[in-house]
């Protein structure tokens, strides 16, 4: 446990949260949920450690590109949309001046998908050992299963 001091509500104060994420984006809502949650935790001064594995290692692929939508669908889809990596990058930078966020991608999963050398600056390629260090050092652990 990082801290067992009670907070104002009498509950144990949470200072460090580990998030385990195994889904990629564009077909799942889980990465959106994780990023929104991380933002709120960082705002409250809580340290966030994200351990990304399986398809989630593609979220930090630095080669994601913003692209135009197909012309005939622009009336409903808009002109373009930002890739998920941009939001992760901004959350990592936000942590420079407040509670920090570490984002670790599983090396095995990244190698399988050919994205180990394409990780964005700020993302750390790590091991399963990092997963258990995050879990062991966290006051709270949030794991979102692969089907979400």
């Amino acid at each position, binding site marked *: 446990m990082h801290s067992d001091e009670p907070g104002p509500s009498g509950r144990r104060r949470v200072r460090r949260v580990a998030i385990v994420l195994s889904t990629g*984006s*564009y*077909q*799942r*809502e889980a*990465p*959106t949920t994780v*990023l*929104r949650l991380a*933002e709120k935790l960082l705002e409250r001064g809580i340290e966030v450690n994200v351990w990304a594995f399986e398809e989630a290692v593609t979220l930090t692929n630095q080669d994601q590109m913003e692209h135009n*939508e*197909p012309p*005939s*669908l622009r*009336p*409903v*889809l*808009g*002109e373009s*949309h*930002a*890739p*998920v990596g941009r*939001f992760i990058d*901004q*959350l990592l930078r*936000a942590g420079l001046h407040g509670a920090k966020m570490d984002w670790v991608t599983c090396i095995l999963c990244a190698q399988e998908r050919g994205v180990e050398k394409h990780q964005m600056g700020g993302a750390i390629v790590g091991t399963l050992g990092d997963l258990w260090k995050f879990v062991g050092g966290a006051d709270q652990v949030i794991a979102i299963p692969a089907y979400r």
Partner: protein
Amino acid sequence: MAHRILVIFEKPIMLSFEPADPHLFATALGVADTPLEISVLLRDSAVTYAVSAQAVSARILGQEIAPSGTTPARLVTFMLEHGAVVRVVREDLEERGIPPSDLVAGVRVVGRFDTAEIFAENDGVILW
């Protein structure tokens, strides 16, 4: 050659950093930009795609991740406007407490046992 294609949706995808479920807008593109006769069947939880009063919004660090505000209902409307037939399964609506009056205008409600005939009317079936 397949000409009549039935596209079935079963599980909705929301707020995925795409402007909408990519399968849904891929289908809309087929409806609008190809000579294929594409129809849509919404069943299981994907019946929610036909509910008219949808609003999509999520902000991270003050930035909207879905700036176009595209909802599945808008894409359903788009496909209807481009001549597609869109059906929903009545029993799946009822199980979720969705009255037909909540649906996008023009969406047809069919019974679960009607779906076999709909399959047979088409040359190909895509299940997302």
